[in-house]
């Protein structure tokens, strides 16, 4: 008894740490719903976060505008050069337009996606440790959001809901290294196993026989269950053969610039 009294603090900290480790173990695979106290904290913090987030973004944009004034001349020259480059690229326009039409008809993308019901949401904060890999949006179970719902933008796939509270939800971006899903190449119908990579890119793996190449568009396959089918993931940047491996590495540029989004759509 005396020993316990003398070591009360040590015992208490050990007990708390044990509980925290248990918490880590129980939640490391993700959970469908948060507890009521967590939901209350998240919902309570969300309005203030949102105000600070948008105020900071406004100040940042204004500051960027002011600081960029001095560089306008050089930017103007760069833009003129860019315009010149675009004029050259314009010659390929007809070809690209035709290709675009073919792709659209191939996918029937817009028709299929008109059937989805959406919930719109805004980002209220970003995970300070991992950046845009995980972000919080101002829609939760009260708005009908559920775990594993697909988060998109008009341009393509953003991520999936990993945790839902009453008024907020956490989104795991597709560019996060923990994000794993299947895609399919539009042109060749090759299946691609995709995961997040550094610098907001995606990396995929395909069989060595796959005919996928740079410039191909990759869509969600709908096979893994996490994402709805036929949502644009991105464009293949390069395909690399890996020495001694039975798969080719595919580097994909996501259709959505995850680090620049403010508002998202959640597919019901």
């Amino acid at each position: 008894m005396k020993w316990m009294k003398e070591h009360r603090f040590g015992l208490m900290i050990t007990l708390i740490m044990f509980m925290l480790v248990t918490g880590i173990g129980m939640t490391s695979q993700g959970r469908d719903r948060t507890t009521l106290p967590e939901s209350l904290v998240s919902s309570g913090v969300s309005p203030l976060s949102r105000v600070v987030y948008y105020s900071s973004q406004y100040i940042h944009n204004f500051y960027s505008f002011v600081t960029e004034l001095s560089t306008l001349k050089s930017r103007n020259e760069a833009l003129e050069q860019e315009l010149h480059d675009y004029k050259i690229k314009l010659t390929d326009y007809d070809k690209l337009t035709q290709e675009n039409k073919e792709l659209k008809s191939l996918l029937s993308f817009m028709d299929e996606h008109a059937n989805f019901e959406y919930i719109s949401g805004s980002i209220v904060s970003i995970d300070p440790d991992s950046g845009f890999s995980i972000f919080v949006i101002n829609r939760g179970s009260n708005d009908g959001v559920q775990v594993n719902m697909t988060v998109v933008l008009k341009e393509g796939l953003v991520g999936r809901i990993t945790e839902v509270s009453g008024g907020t939800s956490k989104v795991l971006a597709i560019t996060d290294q923990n994000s794993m899903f299947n895609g399919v190449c539009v042109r060749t119908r090759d299946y691609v196993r995709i995961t997040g990579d550094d610098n907001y890119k995606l990396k995929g793996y395909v069989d060595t026989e796959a005919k996928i190449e740079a410039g191909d568009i990759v869509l969600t396959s709908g096979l893994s269950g996490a994402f709805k089918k036929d949502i644009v993931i991105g464009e293949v940047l390069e395909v690399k053969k890996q020495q001694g491996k039975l798969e080719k590495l595919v580097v994909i540029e996501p259709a959505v610039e995850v680090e620049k989004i403010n508002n998202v759509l959640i597919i019901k």
Partner: protein
Amino acid sequence: MKTLIISLVLLLELILQGTFFQFMNIAGFYPDLVLITIVIIGIFHDKEYSWRFGLIAGLLTDIIYGRVLGFHGLLYLTVIVVVSILASNVFKESIVAPLLLFPIGSLVKNTMYYMITYLLKENIPIGEYLASFGIYYWVINMIALFAVFFLMLRYKKYWVVSN
């Protein structure tokens, strides 16, 4: 009351880190205000009182941003207990104490962070992780440490509990 004040300050700092500093940063680096505050609280209070703030800050981080409940709770609890033990015999109102103990706190937090993420099979490339603690990290955090330390010293009566 003092416990509530410190908890609200930690919450506000956490919100700033997830919002304001995502836009206002230098090459992606910004001060780790929560860690700085945790270290200063650990210096001014004994471990029997300070531990709760490590736990509160950590759990708030987990609830608001984290995927795994208890992850940051474990990190900040360990940091504040270690700092409180090391600071038990130092002159608390000198800037030397936080200058010495912040690097230790940062080392404890980030080593544990890397180890736990490794155990959770979330491999962060070690080179990339170490690169995030370059000169910018230390300069920005040391400037913030000075600012937060003298600000907290000035308003000591609102948050320091006399033993």
